[in-house]
């Protein structure tokens, strides 16, 4: 079922760390994350989920399918993935597999879980050093995600070094330095406006002299449509590959859960440019359902690796397809 961080990191030796006391992560325990996901929904107006639960399931007629379609569209799953699910469900109904409410939900959740079953859910830190590059559009939560991954890696006994390769946005370096302090990791940095490739080069050199296990590279947020900036990203990748032939071992794309259909284009274009290995779906603590993750996994075959559900250290979680599907459809 729910995976632990210990399971998510590939290449760990040693036992999983003791669970943290709630106080240490900076927040009171607020129940399961599923519960927290739903808390947001309860506050939004009447949800589609309530409407879906109100459907008469003894008659699986057009109204049911239309309602299902709207539920999925409303969750930002996109037209193509929605049609895929609805058609599969209709087919199952025609074959007599779905007859009542319970079967309807079980089947629906399973279809969604199946759509997430692509790629490798783990984050590879088995190399010495392993390089994780984090990319994404402006404001999707790259720096925050890096701070949290670093924190969890540290807890698993890895030494982590952060590379401040976002040299563009004002005060981005300071933000990463702050996270470095919180996670207790050194941050390799240069001046604002310097060449991100050079920062990465320095970071790799520093990791060698310090013997760091993992280097996490923060990059500037950029829109996937900006060709020169995407070229810059490819260059950063080349700089890494030249120093560490198999690197980067992970390239994570942060996608804001509130993003609509553009998220799919983002994932495709970042994927083409820098071979994204997995998605971090951030900001799921709002009322957005993050259905774009379904479309990204289904249409591009990219695994969702982590979920961000809040600002605290412990609010970045390994992705759990079953739980996510549950939150997406159940009232």
């Amino acid at each position, binding site marked *: 079922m729910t995976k632990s961080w210990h399971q998510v990191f590939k290449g760990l030796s040693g036992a999983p760390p003791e669970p943290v006391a709630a106080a240490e992560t900076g927040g009171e325990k607020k129940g399961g994350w599923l519960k927290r996901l739903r*808390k*947001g929904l309860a*506050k*939004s*107006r009447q949800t589609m989920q309530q409407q879906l639960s109100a459907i008469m399931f003894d008659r699986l007629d057009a109204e049911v399918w239309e309602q299902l379609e*709207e539920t999925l*569209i*409303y*969750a*930002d799953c*996109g*037209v193509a993935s929605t049609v895929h699910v609805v058609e599969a469900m209709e087919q199952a109904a025609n074959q007599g597999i779905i007859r009542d409410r319970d079967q309807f939900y079980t089947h629906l959740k399973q279809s969604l879980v199946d759509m997430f079953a692509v790629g490798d859910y783990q984050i590879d830190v088995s190399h010495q050093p392993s390089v994780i590059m984090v990319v994404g*559009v*402006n*404001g*999707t*939560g790259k720096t925050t995600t890096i701070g949290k991954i670093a924190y969890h890696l540290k807890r698993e006994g890895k030494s982590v070094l952060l590379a401040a390769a976002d040299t*563009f*946005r*004002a*005060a*981005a370096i*300071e*933000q990463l*330095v*702050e*996270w470095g302090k919180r996670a207790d990791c050194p941050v390799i940095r240069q001046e*604002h406006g310097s060449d991100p490739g050079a920062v990465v080069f320095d970071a790799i050199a520093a990791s060698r002299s310090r013997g760091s296990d993992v280097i996490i590279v923060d990059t500037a947020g950029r*829109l*996937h*449509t*900006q*060709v020169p900036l995407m070229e810059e990203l490819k260059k950063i990748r080349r700089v890494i590959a030249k120093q560490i032939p198999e690197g980067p071992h992970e390239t994570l794309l942060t996608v*804001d859960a*509130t*993003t*609509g*259909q*553009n*998220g799919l*284009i*983002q994932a495709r274009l970042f994927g083409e440019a820098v071979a994204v290995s997995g998605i971090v779906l951030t*900001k799921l*603590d*709002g*009322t*957005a*359902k993050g*259905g*774009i993750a379904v479309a990204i996994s289904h249409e591009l075959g990219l695994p969702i690796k982590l979920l961000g559900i809040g600002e605290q250290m412990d609010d970045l979680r390994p992705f759990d397809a079953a739980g996510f599907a549950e939150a997406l459809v159940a009232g």
Partner: protein
Amino acid sequence: MFDTLSDKLQDVLGGLKGQGRLSEEDIARAMREIRLALLEADVNFRVVKQFVAAVKERALGEEVMESLTPGQQVIKIVHEELVKLMGLASTKLTFSSRPPTVVLMVGLQGSGKTTACAKLARQLIAQGKQPELIAADIYRPAAIEQLQVLGKQVKAPVFTIAGGKDAVEIARKGVADAEAAGRDVAIIDTAGRLHIDEALMQELAQMRSQVNPHNILLVLDAMTGQDAVNVAEQFQQQVNFDGVVLTKLDGDARGGAALSVKAVTGKPIKFASTGEKIKDFDYFHPDRMASRILGMGDVMTLIERAQETITEKKAREMEAKLLKAQFTFDDFLDQLRSMRKMGPLAGMLSMIPGIPKQLKQAQIDEKELDRVEAIICSMTVEERRHPDIINGSRRRRIAMGSGSDTHSVNQLLNRFKQMQKLMKQLAGGKKLKGLPPELLRTFNV
């Protein structure tokens, strides 16, 4: 890829020419396409429903049923309805008769508030105002530093309380400071917050009652999906904002969120943030947004970009050269570069409506353009002016110098010759209409 709505409507309705009238069934099919297009553009599905109903009513009217080009007619109706929906409110800021005019910027995390604050300040300065920025985001690490750096860039003072723990107090003292300093606008940057975070929304409501802002702007990411209406409704309830700043419009998001928010809250989109640079900030143009949502291309933006990169003088020089058929490789390189400065060719083509689908789908290989540039750069000045002198050994040298092969050099030379020929024909008096096909072929499209 997703076809544009206009293509689809042409397919559905265009073939009916000559058959007389449209049936209700045809209209229903067209409405389905419109619905899908709007959903793909992230317009909220409730809004889509209402909108499609309104369009259908008009489409069933005579103007479409009897039209010879029903597809275009429907597009026109959709476009008009979109503009009507998004554009019937003022986009101007409210200025107080007793300065400073207070502007409060609110929004979710990562929507671009801090950047938008600085961009707005720059725009106000350009209009002769004297804004002061107030950094009241005490939560995100380094947010205050970010505003301070941006403030320096746009030459606006930034107020904050170092180590301050009370955002409301910073806002209040900031406004007082702006007043004392005789600034006429005070722009307050607040922390990004979730619309369901009660404590933080309370803080915002408190800030509102303490500083009495004349304008509250909700900063919204153009890429936002269906959730945009929830966000907007919650912010409306808590702080009753006056308008929206739509950010990250330089991407390829269709921006249906703009339509949703306007439809649900009635609050207009006032500003659009369209790029990385501080000056990429403008009033919102509903007609352009409507075209964008429909995937109809954005000719105005393209024209503006062209005006920025190609000066009029240069254009006139070029025209003269073309007419005298003195077009050299230097000119060609010049044109190629200024064209590429406008952005990737594929992006430009997508902005032009009416470009045939095949052309849009053609893979425009930017690398091929690099190669063309490299080949020209490997020519001597003499060779660029008089390509005729390029013989076998020169070809080999150029190929070596540009890292290509003689075949590619030959190809370019041949195409260039064809182009010159074409120019000579055109110089006969006919006006040049659009790009000559030979030129397009050079770009492999």
